[in-house]
């Protein structure tokens, strides 16, 4: 890498290198069609191409590469969940993230910041103690910390008995991290395209043709393509696309709003989250404070921002960080969270033989990008469900084996 960089710097012409495939006509047939070129879709394509030698693949997106919820999430990476299935799954993902820049030869700007979740009540402390023990048992770094430790970790926090909801304790998760979300999808897509995968942007899937219990072709605004298999990775539109294949999912799509301030000098290292106040805050490497919260109170397929949410997020943020009172907001936006009843994804086989689901990514999609790509690729290549994602199958609703992931963000509906 450094040699390439040196040669590039000395070349004098600075030629831009193409990272993704040029748009060309769709072929008549692909072995696999991936619907959705976000982080998950691109990661599935990457792992299939690199580790399973499956490259006759079309990666379709109705918009642009990584332009949907991959661009709209708040880029929090953590594994301090509560269920065994959840902790194991996200733990693997955090580990893959740690080495992702090397894996992709692409800087995803991974930063190990740590994450602090705040307790404002006795019951929250009890649940944090539970979470910390489950995490430690499964090899994830989490610990219950007292107010003095919180002061040391985040001296900027307002810790006062005068507060409406005084901070009583915290859950410190040293494995918490962040990465540049765009870079993650660009890196995966570049790695996939360089191995023969075709990226087709502005290619909207409008229908899915089936014959018997199999998908035979995918209809798009640019023509129909036959496929040996298809997988959907369309967070925010999971129900709509699954419906085209005649599949109904236990999902409700809610907007989740976030906003950023203008940039300031670096002064807040960890992520700070308060489930009680429905807010989480961290400072990006650019200096902006990112502020996110719970999902909207009712479902909507629309990424509009509301003044109500801006007010409540600002109020909660100022409870924790009063020094931001004069900060100016630069942007406010929403992503669409596909919420499942048990706050866990729906991954793996569908009722159709050759159609796979990567859906239900509520508020946990970005952090799961590498492991979803890896396990879905394994499943598509071998036909077997990897142990890590077996608990997340669609069947669980019929077998009464819901995962009940109470450690999820926005687990408040």
């Amino acid at each position, binding site marked *: 890498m450094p040699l390439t960089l040196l040669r590039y710097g000395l070349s004098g012409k600075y030629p831009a290198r193409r990272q993704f495939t040029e748009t060309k006509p769709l072929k008549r047939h692909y072995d696999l069609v991936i619907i959705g070129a976000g982080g998950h879709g691109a990661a599935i394509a990457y792992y299939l191409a690199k580790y399973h030698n499956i490259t006759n693949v079309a990666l379709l997106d109705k918009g642009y590469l990584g332009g949907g919820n991959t661009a709209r999430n708040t880029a929090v990476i953590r594994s301090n969940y509560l269920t065994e299935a959840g902790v194991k799954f996200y733990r693997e993902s955090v580990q893959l993230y740690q080495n992702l820049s090397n894996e992709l030869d692409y800087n995803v700007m991974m930063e190990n910041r740590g994450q602090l979740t705040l307790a404002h009540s006795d019951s929250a402390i009890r649940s944090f103690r539970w979470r910390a023990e489950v995490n430690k048992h499964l090899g994830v770094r989490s610990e219950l910390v007292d107010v003095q430790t919180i002061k040391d970790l985040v001296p900027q926090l307002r810790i006062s008995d005068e507060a409406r909801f005084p901070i009583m304790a915290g859950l410190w998760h040293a494995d918490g991290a962040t990465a540049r979300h765009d870079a993650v999808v660009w890196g995966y897509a570049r790695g996939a395209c360089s191995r023969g995968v075709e990226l087709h942007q502005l290619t909207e899937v409008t229908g899915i043709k089936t014959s018997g219990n199999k998908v035979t072709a995918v209809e798009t605004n640019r023509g129909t393509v036959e496929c040996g298999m298809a997988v959907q990775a369309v967070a925010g*539109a999971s*129900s709509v696309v699954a419906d085209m294949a005649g599949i109904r999912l236990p*999902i409700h799509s809610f907007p989740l709003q976030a906003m950023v301030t203008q940039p300031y000098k670096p002064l807040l290292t960890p992520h700070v989250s308060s489930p009680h106040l429905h807010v989480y805050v961290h400072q990006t490497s650019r200096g902006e404070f990112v502020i996110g919260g719970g999902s909207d109170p009712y479902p909507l*397929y629309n990424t509009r921002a509301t003044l*109500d949410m801006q007010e409540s997020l600002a109020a909660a943020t100022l409870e924790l960080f009063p020094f931001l009172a004069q900060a100016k907001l630069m942007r406010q936006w929403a992503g669409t969270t596909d919420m499942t009843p048990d706050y866990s994804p729906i991954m793996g086989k569908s009722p159709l033989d050759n159609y796979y689901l990567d859906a239900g990514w509520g508020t946990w999609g970005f952090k799961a990008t590498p492991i979803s790509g890896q396990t879905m690729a394994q499943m598509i290549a071998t036909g077997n469900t990897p142990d890590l994602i077996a608990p997340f199958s669609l069947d669980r609703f019929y077998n009464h084996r819901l995962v009940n992931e109470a450690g999820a963000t926005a687990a408040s509906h």
Partner: protein
Amino acid sequence: MKLMHCPLNGQRNISEFTYGGEYHPMPNPEESTVDTWIEYIYFDKNTAGIVLEWWCHTATSYWFLAERNTITDEILRTLPVSELKKEPVS
């Protein structure tokens, strides 16, 4: 401030209301299987478009139905439960 028309209380701020899920007729308990009930409980259509939903005016615990466009966020109409046609078992 977004307003919603409550059949009982008139125009109110939408923050006074609680969303209660898509409206589905309840399956007939005499004839339905366990899977039918599972689908009734968990599997909604999650429609992108016009949908009939349960809403509650929280302050007065008044449940009613609303027709809403889930793409544009427009509330098209609200109606009391009594206006629903009689379902086989409801």
